[in-house]
């Protein structure tokens, strides 16, 4: 009986250790160095009527450098996905804030109009089409996102407004800080595909292997279009 208990205890310990090895507290950090893209010809954001009726928010969450998302996609195991809490996009001064919202697929995104006039939110992205109609100021509307990938948003009342929901199949992602630094903790052992995303920039992908609770430092150069 003692032998059986001892073996059971050993097995439990092994299983516990193995489990904790998978969710071992690996960390990844680094710096994304931004470089201005020399490209100066690009698709317009809409037709210029006279210019003064188009508002533009100075909010930093509208800038490119505040909307670079770094994500790690497990290749050697399937992560458990929980909906992203507090996934909000506001419309303020005819601008979507933030410009890029990262979420886990299946999350609800709440749209809030903070202007004093109507806005609409709609998507024509395949398998993620929706329109919330004209929404009055102060009224939030929620939309569940079931598709993985970049989902483009627009407002059909203000054609220059656009944003992206980055719907991810991984819980391991972060918004790169304005100074380019990033850090993700509590990463289980395994192989990952690392992606750095902004809708106006060239996407970066890389492969990363993490194990034994190590701290991995990876720096990248990222071309930013004006």
């Amino acid at each position, binding site marked *: 009986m003692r032998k059986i208990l001892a073996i059971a205890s050993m097995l439990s310990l092994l299983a516990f250790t193995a489990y904790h090895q998978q969710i071992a507290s690996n960390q990844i950090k680094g710096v994304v160095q931004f470089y201005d893209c020399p490209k*100066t*010809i*690009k*698709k*317009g*954001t*809409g*037709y*210029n*009527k*006279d*210019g*003064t*009726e*188009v*508002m*533009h928010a100075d909010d930093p969450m509208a800038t490119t450098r505040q909307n670079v998302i770094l994500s790690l996609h497990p290749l050697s195991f399937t992560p458990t996905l929980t909906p992203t809490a507090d996934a909000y996009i506001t419309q303020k*001064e005819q601008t979507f804030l933030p410009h890029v919202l990262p979420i886990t697929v299946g999350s609800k995104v709440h749209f809030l109009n903070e*202007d*004093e*006039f*109507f806005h609409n939110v*709609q998507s*024509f992205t*395949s398998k993620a*089409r*929706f*329109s919330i*109609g*004209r929404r*009055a*100021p102060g009224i939030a509307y929620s939309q569940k996102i079931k598709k993985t990938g970049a989902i*483009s948003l*627009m407002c059909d009342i203000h*054609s220059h407004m656009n944003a992206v929901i980055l719907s991810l199949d991984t819980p391991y992602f972060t918004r790169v800080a304005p100074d380019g630094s990033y850090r993700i903790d509590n990463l289980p052992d395994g192989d990952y595909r690392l992606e750095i995303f902004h809708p106006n920039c060239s996407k970066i992908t890389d492969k990363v292997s993490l194990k034994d609770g190590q701290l991995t430092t990876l720096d990248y150069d990222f071309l930013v279009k*004006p």
Partner: protein
Amino acid sequence: MRKTYLFNLLVALLFYPPLMLLAQPTLQWNALLDVEMSKGGAQSHFYYNEIDANNKDARIGFSQLNLIGKLSITTNWHLNGRFLLERDKGQQLDKLVVPQLNLQWLASKRTIGFTIGSFINPFGSFNEQQLSIDRNFIGLPLAYSYYVNISDKIGFAENLGDIANISIDEERQWGGTNLYYGGYSTGALFSWTIKPSKINWKLALVTGAANLQKRFTNPLHLGIISRLKIQATYFWEQSFSFSHGSFLRASEISTPIDQLKKYRQTLLGTDFKLGFGFVEFSGEIIATFYKTPLFLLDENRFQDTSIDTPLQLSNVSAYLDTKYELPFLQGSYLAYRIDRMTFGASEGYATNSAWDNAVWRHSLAAGYRINTHFLARVAFSTQQVANKNWDKTQRTLRLVLTAHY
């Protein structure tokens, strides 16, 4: 990839050379192409229902190609251009024009702007919808498309066009629209957002009246346009517009007139937009006043008294648009427009009868945005013209596929 590169190169060649020496300019561009299938009734004519009389049977083809560019020289200075290849008066796709080409200065918060060159005529709300992707219907409202009995060469003449066949400078006179359907004016524009998202005011000094189709007149006339836009509450926009300018051009028969500039057109208008959820109502009412000489068709000359004492003619045009977006089919909509134009009696001429025939027009449209780059629309219209037996012969059916990048 290669096509995109070549297109960028083409855009660069069109817009870039004059400003290549300036530091760090950025060029934004868009393109738009319309493919249209149309069919009109037996009495169709571009001047009445926008269907060319020689192309009223079913036909399909490209109806317009746009290349739109915005060169941002600095954060405040911009050069805006639009190149348009279109069907001239609904005929063949062979008219290349540059309706918009202007230099613009915008204050840092875009509350104040100055524009010089050719720009969208600020009168009314419809002119703002310059591109077909902004329009629910395919046809234009009556005030912008229906030709009335006033020509920019001979002024007022009865039954111009369909009955009175008169040619001046080898050009048959059909009259003209109250507002030029091209939607652009040339001159200088001041725009001021007095209260962001609440009150905007525009004032333009331009080269003539709002019905002028030519960029410049001979002699050069002046006109003024003003528009005040008020966002009364989040679901209601109301605007008030004014336009005043000379419209009569010199021609082979205008020698008896010493002062062409005294023949003027004045427009007063108000427009609104109301909406909630998936429903939108919008419309415009425009009162038009002309001071015009009377042209005597039988004698092929101006009436002497009307040269010094112009006739005073007026009409009123109005339309109401209703649009419903189908919530269960995202990107789709149904729309209905009722359009009306009525004419007053002329002071000093036929005081007991209107100076042109009143018109009713009903239009139905449906649209579906296939994705961000493609919009499909179908529209049907029918109109009744007073004193004319045209009721069923000026119907139109038009289908347009718009590709936009």
